[in-house]
């Protein structure tokens, strides 16, 4: 019986493994050559691109910025998404379907369109800025372009819908009876959340957080449009170097650093979760 299922698995495994290995191998190998300009690369293996990356403070700053905005966006996305996911998952009325529909539509629509929306909202003579100036919060129009706040906001628009959908299925795996049990015995709502819901959803929360973080690390659109040509994240730089400067090997090196940093952060987080689990800090 099992052998049959193994046979079913093999073709898919082969396709995926080939796609991953072939594509990653090609660009990582290219990153170890030298750019000759016009998209051609040298023939000798060299570390030039990586040395350039780690000796130039510009690139290092870009890397730090990328990790920082992704981290902020992940944290804020979780903070906004979890209460919504919890609300929808615990709701009994037909209204829950409408709430869910709003989330799905927002996830469907490409981030480019949402960035248009942000541009209109933060237009210098838009109603938001007029309100801010009228109420005296600022004395000149507030602009999100070229600021970290703008980039984080763009990333959140990219991930928030996904975040809610992910956490929705996480909350759904927590039996409601656990909460009821704690509450019947006198725990306050706050205590139920803190001691029952949170520990139970922590594994799912970690997986969700990592997925959102990975999305941010690879996101290019919001940072490209809202960075306003002043603020570069690593994905934006990869696209510029490859498509505009046609330096495939330098682009490959930038992408390689991005890949390794992302994978290391993923691994460390998963190991931390294992540690917590071993220390019985987290159940499940």
């Amino acid at each position, binding site marked *: 019986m*099992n052998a*049959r*299922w193994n046979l*079913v*698995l*093999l*073709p*898919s*495994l082969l396709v*995926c493994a080939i796609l*991953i290995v072939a*594509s990653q191998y*090609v660009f990582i190998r290219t990153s170890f050559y030298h750019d000759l300009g016009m998209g051609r690369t040298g023939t000798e293996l060299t570390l030039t691109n990586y040395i350039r990356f780690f000796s130039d403070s510009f690139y290092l700053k870009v890397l730090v910025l990328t990790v920082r905005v992704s981290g902020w966006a992940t944290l804020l996305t979780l903070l906004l998404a979890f*209460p*919504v996911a919890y*609300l929808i998952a615990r709701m009994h009325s037909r209204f829950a*379907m409408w709430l*869910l529909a709003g989330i799905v*539509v*927002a996830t*469907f*629509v*490409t*981030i*480019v*369109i949402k960035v*248009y*929306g942000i541009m*209109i*909202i933060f237009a210098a003579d838009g109603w938001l800025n007029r309100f801010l100036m009228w109420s005296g919060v600022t004395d000149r129009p507030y602009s999100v372009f070229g600021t970290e706040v703008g980039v984080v906001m763009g990333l959140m*628009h990219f991930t*928030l819908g996904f975040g809610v*959908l*992910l956490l*929705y*299925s*996480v909350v759904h795996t927590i039996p409601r009876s*656990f909460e009821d*049990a704690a*509450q019947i*015995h*006198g725990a*306050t*709502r*706050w205590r139920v959340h803190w001691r*029952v819901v949170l520990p139970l959803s922590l594994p799912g929360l970690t*997986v969700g957080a990592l997925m959102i973080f990975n999305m941010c*690390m*690879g996101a*290019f*659109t919001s940072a*490209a*449009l809202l960075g306003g040509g002043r603020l570069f994240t690593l994905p934006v730089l*990869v*696209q510029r170097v*490859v498509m505009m400067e046609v330096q495939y090997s330098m682009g490959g090196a930038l*992408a390689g650093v991005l*890949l390794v940093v*992302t994978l290391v952060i993923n691994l460390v987080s998963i190991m931390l979760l294992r540690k917590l689990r071993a220390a019985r800090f987290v*159940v499940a």
Partner: protein
Amino acid sequence: MNIANTILEEARRGSRARMPRRSLLPVGALVHLGWCSLSYIFLLSPLVVVIGASLNGGGEYASMSFPPQDVTIANYLDIPQRRFESLGLSLALAASAALIGCLIGVPAALGLVRGNLPGKMLMAAVFRAPLQIPAVVTGIAFLQLYYIIGDATGLKMYGSFSGLLVGHAFIAIPYVVGSVTAILQRFDNRLEEAALSLGASRWRTFRRVTLPSIMPGVYAGALYGFMVSFADVPVSIFLSSPHTRTYPVELFFDLEHDFSPTILASATVVIAICLILLMVMQKLVGLETLLRSGKGGR
């Protein structure tokens, strides 16, 4: 067990006859609701604003204001033909990517849950890898792979539909594997045993018992696959040529180079298409059951 402890602890306290405090004003619930409305306003306001502004009349400058003045549908009539072409391309691409994602992902999930090959953790990691590789990296990796394939065999993958499709299917597969795996792990094997013992063939059992029960997972995975493909910029921007631009990439370049009010109208068309797709989904399978069976805490 922390949770059991908490419950016991509370039970002990409860025995001292302390009832849960209930204030007249449900402050917690109000804060929760307020917080959720904030999330919704944040998430949906750009879409509302775009729809509103797309109805603006009166030239290029006025087009960026909301609420609209001089309501008109002129912007819709001026949408250039090429944008509809790229919209068609994007829809076909997303549907194909979701389909291929299912063709590869469903057998993968079945094998992962029911097979007994050694190294399952590693195999699961292979199927999950596209989620961990940043999207831009996937884009540049496939671009360079296509160049190499082109040099070696003369096959032109770069800028072709098939080239885009391979990249998009690559990022759609993990979603299908995830959601189908989640549902298979909860599957009651006795259902299959019952069918077999009643004389159904293996294939018939699979088709009539197993497949229908994992279908919600398949739909959920396909929906996610469709969504990531239909909204994707970072992968497509590397793989599409000026003749095969996906819709988001087309809008991205329009926004970067020359802004015109027709962009807002085109964006509204996409929002409308998404709404229609959503309603079809709701009618076909029901949104709630669909997303409930999605990838859970794994």
